[in-house]
């Protein structure tokens, strides 16, 4: 979900930066949808998306004083949200590796073996069937407009990792969406 159109009055941002909780609440109300949806798309479930929303705004409340106003407020909040979401994704993956043992396969398959759909499925279902990291790359690149370099950096990987994940995602979607 894109929120470029969303703007919060600069006076309000100034108040929020002073730590005013009412102003921070307005910022929350303006961006909760965008942050929640980003979390929901990257993590793939409601529970994690709620954590992303909460963690993001805890961080925003803590650090908004450091937001210098260069670039949009949404740009900054989105950056926080993406890093929280990816952190959750990593944690989830580590938990599963710990639980199921190292499979030796590609890490993004761990704990989420894609089942072969019987027939054509819709895009929403297909997204849910993608391995988490693959889905995250797809969403960040194709919807949020992050470059492969940026995604690589966010994930502690390379740009070509991001590229190959994107290809993988579209190959899967190509198979599943008839």
């Amino acid at each position, binding site marked *: 979900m894109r929120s470029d159109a969303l703007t919060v009055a600069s006076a309000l941002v100034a108040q929020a930066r002073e730590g005013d909780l009412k102003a921070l609440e307005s910022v*929350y109300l303006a961006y*909760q*949808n965008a942050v*929640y*949806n980003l979390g*929901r798309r990257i993590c793939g479930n409601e529970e994690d998306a709620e954590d992303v929303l909460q963690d993001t705004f805890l961080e925003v409340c803590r650090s908004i004083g450091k937001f210098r106003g260069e670039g949009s407020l949404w740009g900054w909040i989105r950056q926080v949200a993406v890093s929280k979401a990816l952190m959750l994704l990593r944690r989830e993956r580590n938990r599963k590796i710990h639980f199921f043992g190292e499979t030796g396969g590609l890490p993004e398959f761990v704990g989420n073996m894609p089942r072969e759909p019987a027939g054509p499925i819709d895009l929403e279902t297909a997204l849910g069937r993608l391995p988490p990291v693959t889905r995250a790359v797809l969403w960040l690149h194709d919807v949020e407009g992050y470059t492969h370099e940026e995604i690589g950096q966010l994930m502690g990987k390379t740009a070509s990792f991001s590229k190959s994940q994107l290809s993988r995602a579209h190959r899967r979607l190509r198979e599943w969406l008839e």
Partner: protein
Amino acid sequence: MRVGTNHLEMDELLALRDGEGGASARAHVEACEGCQQELERLYQVRAQLRALSGFAPPRGLWPRVARHVRRRRRLRRRLGYGAVGLAAAAALAGVYVVNDATRGPPAEPLEAWVIEAESQDLGPMISRSRELESLLQTYRPASQVYDAPTALAVSVLEDRILLLDRLLSDSRQLGVKRELLRDLWGERVETLETLVNLELAEPETVWR
């Protein structure tokens, strides 16, 4: 140049879609109907992804966030993020370190759960807790800049203290047993010690 059945791979098609494809790939697409269709599909899928309907965020999350923010602020005040000058704070240090409420005002009015814990012979741990808090309160400058890993560590430790405080303050309602209560206080002391070590060990590198 590619010819015949040697169609473009997915990564080449994606590069073209994103305006990055090479000349030979572009030439192939212009000549190949199959790859044109594939490319068109990729544009469509991207448009469909962007058009997916949104999810409604949970209601009532903000009060939870705000509560946590207030707790954190109280804690930070207690741990010395206030505007206490170093000299003044040093003068007060004796008072706080010996933890004698009659010799000076406590940093904040004592909360009921602390008083209750004191009455349950957890006194030594509570004293140590206060001693560490006053160390931080005394020697932490009013504003400080951390490098990123230190900032992360500090916030993780502070979060842990907040969680423990929440648990401790609800311990009666939760029916927490004596042994667990002792462990929780022990945990609190340990966390504070880590925080003190982190913040006071090498002040010149931690505080820029």
